[in-house]
C-alpha cells in the first residue's frame, strides 16, 4: 500500500471533518483512527476511492466517539444530520492546519509532533519511533498539544514564520525508525509552497532540496560522516539540485530576501561547484554577510569564519573566529580545521580531540576523533 498517498490525504480529510462541524481535537482523533484502520484493511482490500473511504470511516469514528459521550448527545443529533462539505477551498483549509499545528503557544517538540500527525498523517507510533520515545509519551504530547490549540479559532490566518520554523526542525533534527522524516518534511513544505505564495516558503523548500540532494554522499558505508569537501559529488542528486536552484532563483527574483533564501543560496553555490576546490567562496562569504545582517546569529558568524578561511586563507578565518564565544557549538572543531589549514598540526590535533569530547552526536564525535587520529598518525609517521 502507498503510505505516502495515504498520508497526503490526511489534511484534506481532517479539514472536511472540521468543516462539517467537528472540533479539531475530536476530528484529528477520528482521522488518526481511520488511518490506522486503513493501514490494517487496505493491503487486502484496497478502496476504489481512498479519500472517500477515509472521510466515511473518519466521520463514522467521530460520530461513534461523540455518541459515546452522553453529555454531548444533543450535538450528536445535529452532527448526524450534517450536510456534505460545502464549496470552501481545500487549499485554504490545509493552510489553516499548518498554522494551527505550528501555533506559537506550542513548544517546538509539540508543534513538530502535531504537524507530523495532523498534517503529515503519521501515526503516533511512527512519530514515537522517529524520536525514540515510548508511544505513550508521544500520545500524551500530542493530546496535550491539541488541548493547547483547541481554543485557537480555525479561520484566523497564522504566522508563516512559525510554520517554517517547525518544518525546518522536522527536516533538520536527527531521527530513527522506518519513516524518512526528512522526506516527509519536504513533502509537507512542497504542499505549503503550493498553497501559499511566499518567497521564504520557496526558500526553505529550495534549502531542503539542495541538502537532500547530497544525502547519499554524506555518509560512508559504515555510517561515518563525510564532510562536504570530501563527498563524491557524482553521488549528488542532480534532479533535486536543478529543482532547488530553479525554485530559489524564482524566489530571489522577487527581491524579498529572508534567512531561508540566503541559506539556500549558500547551498546552491556548493551544489554548483564541480569539485570542492572550485567552490566560489567569495560569493559564499557575501551570502553569510547577508545572513548575519538578517539574523545576527552567532552560529552563522561561526560558519562565516569557515568561509572566510577558504576565501581569504586560514589566518583570515582565525581572525574572524577570534571575537566569537568559544562555548559556541562546534567552535573548537572550526578552530581545529583552520589551524590544520594553517599548518599547525599539533594544535589542530589537540583541538580535534577536544572537539570530539564536546561533540553533540556520535557521528560527529567519531569523525572528529578520526581527524585527531589522522593528524597524530601523520605526525608520528
Amino acid at each position, binding site marked *: 500500500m502507498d503510505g505516502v498517498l495515504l498520508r497526503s490525504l490526511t489534511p484534506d480529510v481532517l479539514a472536511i471533518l472540521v468543516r462539517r462541524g467537528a472540533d479539531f481535537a475530536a476530528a484529528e482523533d477520528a482521522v488518526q483512527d481511520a488511518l490506522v484502520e486503513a493501514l490494517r484493511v487496505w493491503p487486502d482490500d484496497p478502496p476504489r476511492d481512498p479519500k472517500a473511504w477515509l472521510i466515511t470511516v473518519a466521520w463514522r469514528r467521530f460520530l461513534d466517539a461523540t455518541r459515546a459521550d452522553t453529555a454531548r448527545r444533543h450535538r450528536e443529533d445535529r452532527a448526524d444530520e450534517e450536510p456534505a462539505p460545502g464549496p470552501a477551498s481545500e487549499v485554504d483549509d490545509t493552510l489553516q492546519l499548518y498554522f494551527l499545528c505550528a501555533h506559537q503557544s506550542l513548544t517546538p517538540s509539540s508543534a513538530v509532533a502535531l504537524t507530523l500527525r495532523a498534517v503529515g498523517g503519521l501515526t503516533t507510533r511512527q512519530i514515537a519511533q522517529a524520536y525514540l520515545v515510548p508511544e505513550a509519551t508521544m500520545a500524551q504530547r500530542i493530546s496535550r498539544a491539541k488541548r493547547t490549540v483547541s481554543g485557537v479559532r480555525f479561520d484566523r490566518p497564522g504566522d508563516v514564520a512559525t510554520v517554517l520554523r517547525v518544518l525546518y526542525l522536522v527536516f533538520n533534527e536527527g531521527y530513527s525508525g522506518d519513516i524518512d522524516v526528512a522526506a516527509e518534511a519536504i513533502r509537507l513544505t512542497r504542499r505549503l509552497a503550493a498553497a501559499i505564495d511566499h518567497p521564504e516558503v520557496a526558500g526553505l523548500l529550495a534549502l531542503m532540496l539542495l541538502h537532500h540532494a547530497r544525502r547519499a554522499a554524506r555518509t560512508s558505508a*559504515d*555510517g*561515518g560522516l563525510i564532510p562536504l569537501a570530501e563527498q563524491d559529488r557524482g553521488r549528488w542528486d542532480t534532479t533535486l539540485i536543478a529543482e532547488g536552484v530553479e525554485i530559489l532563483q524564482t524566489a530571489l527574483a522577487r527581491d524579498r530576501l529572508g534567512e531561508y533564501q540566503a541559506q539556500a543560496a549558500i547551498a546552491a553555490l556548493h551544489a554548483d561547484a564541480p569539485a570542492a576546490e572550485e567552490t566560489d567562496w567569495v560569493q559564499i562569504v557575501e551570502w553569510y554577510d547577508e545572513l548575519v545582517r538578517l539574523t545576527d546569529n552567532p552560529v552563522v558568524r561561526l560558519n562565516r569564519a569557515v568561509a572566510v578561511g577558504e576565501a581569504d586563507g586560514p589566518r583570515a578565518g582565525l581572525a574572524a573566529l577570534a571575537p566569537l564565544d568559544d562555548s559556541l557549538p562546534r567552535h573548537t572543531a572550526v578552530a581545529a580545521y583552520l589551524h590544520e589549514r594553517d599548518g599547525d598540526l599539533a594544535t589542530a*590535533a589537540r583541538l*580535534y*580531540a577536544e572537539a*570530539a*569530547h*564536546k*561533540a*553533540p552526536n*556520535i557521528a560527529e564525535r*567519531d569523525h572528529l*576523533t*578520526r581527524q*585527531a*587520529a*589522522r593528524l*597524530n*598518525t601523520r605526525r608520528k609517521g
Partner: protein
Amino acid sequence: MAKYLLLKHYRGAPAAVNDVPMDKWTPEEISAHIQYMNDFADRLRETGEFVDGQALAPEGTFVRYDGEGRPPVTDGPFAETKDLIAGWMMIDVDTYDRALELAGELSAAPGAGGKPIHEWLELRPFLTEPPTITE
C-alpha cells in the same frame, strides 16, 4: 530472563590492558573498533537479547533543589569525581553466565594496534518486579 546493564566508563573503572586514548589510534583502528561495536549490537538484536544502548556526553552538571522560590543550584563538572559513565547497553538474557559472556565479548573490542582493549565494563543486574508465585 533477566535484564542487565553493561556500563562503560570514561573514568572510574580500572585501567584497560590496551589503554591508549582513541585519538592516538590510527583512523583505520577507529573504524575497526566502531564496526566491532555495531556488529555486536546487531548480533544481540538478532538473538532477541538487545534492549537499548545509548552514549552519553562526557560532561554533565550536578543539580540540586535550593529551597522554595529559588532556582536550582548547579555545580561541576568535578574533575575529581571518580566515576564517569560513557554509555550503556541494556540486555535481556537467560542467565548471569550469558551476561558475563557478552560483557567479555564487548570488552574484546579492538583498539590501538588492532588488539583487544580488554576494557573493564561494569555489569549491573536490574532490580525486577516481584514474582507472582511467592511460596
